[in-house]
């Protein structure tokens, strides 16, 4: 065990499956009590990284520490101090809510089990469901139960792998409320998601793509430091028809549909706005607007991934 300010850290962490590199020598640090977002599209290497950190997958090379313990030879110590919630519905659907909680609390050797179970059922407002078979719970409650099972033993660090996949927006909001509450009590939260809008909830985040971390920082840093281009929000009738015409302009880099409008990236917003408005006037379009906006995280990620693909010939 090493004493460190970081709850989680990875140094040149690498995982290969045969010839395929799932995680390519990544480096990052997560501070204690931080909500750290690990973001990226499906198949980017998020789950592989999380599984290495939780001690259920051995890295090919590099090192990592979780709670001060080494991920290659102190997995058993790590497991006592972390909570983990996987993407899958990961408890026993033929057992009741209480039987599931009872099982996990026993496995984690939770002290004063009975009281702890009562407390947590109360806290999660699940007392009425205690005798219900978990297969009959709705999606949101299942998610809540999975989280309960992950924090029963008061772990210092929790890993949440796509905790909100397949859950409605309202439940997602409540869920993030709970996560923030945990973090406020000093628990480090390491969360993966491919919902880019959720990333705003994180204190810091890393964007992983094709096994590489391509950007890391706070949400503000992400939008300023990593976003070299400006974003224009364009609203115009029949926006689909305009995508190609707009991206053909020399001052516009990329265009993408965004809601009913178009988001365009550009290196020089003034010149681009001028060129776009000129084009609309020429074509006799009346009902349009073009304005520079602050990029959303989604804009940032899309731009970063496209830059990466361009540079690496992907």
């Amino acid at each position, binding site marked *: 065990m090493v004493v460190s300010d970081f709850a989680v850290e990875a140094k040149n962490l690498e995982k290969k499956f045969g010839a395929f590199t799932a995680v390519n020598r990544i480096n990052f640090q997560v501070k204690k009590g931080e909500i750290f977002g690990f973001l990226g599209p499906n198949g980017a290497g998020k789950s592989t990284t999380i599984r290495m950190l939780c001690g*259920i997958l051995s890295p090919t090379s590099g090192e990592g520490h979780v709670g001060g313990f080494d991920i290659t030879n102190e997995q058993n110590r790590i*497991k006592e101090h*972390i909570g983990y919630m996987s993407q*899958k*519905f990961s408890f026993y659907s033929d*057992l009741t809510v209480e039987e599931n909680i009872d*099982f996990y609390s*026993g*496995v984690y*050797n939770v002290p004063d089990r009975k009281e702890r179970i009562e407390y947590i059922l109360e806290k999660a407002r699940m007392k009425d469901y205690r005798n219900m078979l978990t297969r009959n719970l709705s999606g949101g409650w299942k998610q809540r139960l999975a989280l309960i099972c992950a924090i029963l033993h008061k772990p210092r660090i929790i890993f949440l792998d796509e905790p909100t996949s397949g859950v409605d927006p309202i439940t997602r909001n409540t869920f993030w409320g709970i996560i923030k509450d945990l973090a406020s009590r000093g628990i480090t939260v390491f969360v993966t998601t491919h919902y880019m809008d959720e990333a705003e909830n994180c204190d810091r985040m890393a964007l992983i793509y094709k096994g590489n971390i391509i950007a890391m920082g706070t949400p503000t840093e992400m939008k300023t430091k990593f976003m070299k281009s400006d974003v224009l929000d364009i609203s115009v009738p029949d926006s689909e028809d305009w995508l190609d015409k707009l991206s053909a302009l020399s001052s516009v880099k990329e265009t993408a549909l965004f809601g009913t409008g178009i988001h365009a990236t550009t290196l020089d917003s003034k010149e681009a706005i001028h060129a776009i408005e000129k084009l609309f006037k020429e074509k006799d379009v009346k009902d349009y607007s073009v304005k520079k906006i602050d990029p959303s995280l989604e804009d940032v990620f899309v731009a970063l991934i496209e830059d990466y693909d361009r540079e690496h010939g992907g």
Partner: protein
Amino acid sequence: MFERIKFILIKEFLQILRDPKMRAILFLSPLLQIVIYGYAANTDIQNIPTAAFDLDNTKESRELIRRFKYSKYFNIKYYVYDEGREDELIDKTKVNTVIRINRGFGRELVGNKSANLQIVVDGTDSNTANIILGYADAIVQRYASEAFDERMQIYFKGGEVAYPKVDLRDRSWFNVNLISRNYYIPGVIALTITIMSLVLTSMAIVREKEVGTMEQLMVTPISPLELILGKLAPFGIIAIFQVTLLTAVGVFWFKIPMNGSVSLLFIATCVYLLTSLGVGLFISTISSTQQEAVLSTFLFFFPASLLSGFMFPIMNMPKVIQYVTYLNPLRYYIVILRGIFLKGVGIKILWPQILILLIMGTAIITLSSLWFKKRLV
């Protein structure tokens, strides 16, 4: 450590006993098996449907047919008088055996000559045919020997005579009345707990992989050893319960003898379970779905049961196959069970089988556990 195993155990039992289908598989199917073998699968041959074709029709020929009739083995359903009728009866499976006595049988016998008769048996089932011929032979031999005695008496006019004679007194030990049920039921017990422990163990582990709970378990402090023990113990306990149930039904309902020690039966069962639970564990490591697990189980179970001596005596198998059966744990367990139930032999006789099972079981469980551990992460 035991604390965690206890929680896994409780969880397994909750899951198993909650499912009504599972309860039926665990308790009704073994009972069904033993009832079927106890009643239906009876290889004892009695009341063989027989036709008598007596062309001689003398006192001697009638006496011989009477002896067939009053043995418990043959049931003379038809008396045939026309040539060809007996073939028809066999073709239509109306009878299994035809006794044909040609004209002159009585005359030859009285005239101190060799008298002939013919037994025709339906050989479709070679095993049954052999047994029937054995019974027929015994009846005819006895008749011949008594006829010989009678002729001798007449010849010497009732005086004291001495002549050489061999008298076979046969006696079947351990199953005096040769009731096939006594032979099969110990085997049924062995087969039942084998298939149950194989299927249930492998399915219970593979289900966790399939549903995704295995991954959740792996991030808890449960060690692979605790997981293995917690997963195997419930099915071991269930198997022991099934042995108890089946033994009780066998002894009290089907009246099969229990000549040996009940505690040795349970000790041997525990040792045997090491092998079958170990194979179940191994199957779980090579299967990723429950269907795969069930199919792999049968891949092991069928050869194991065919080469166990349950149905087909091992001594009748070709030498090479006989050597193969030495690798089959079920073979030893069946020998142990039959030894305990029928022969009443104890550890003094059965220790080699128990020792082999112990070695095999330890090896299988250790290797499977190591393999299981390797495949987990």
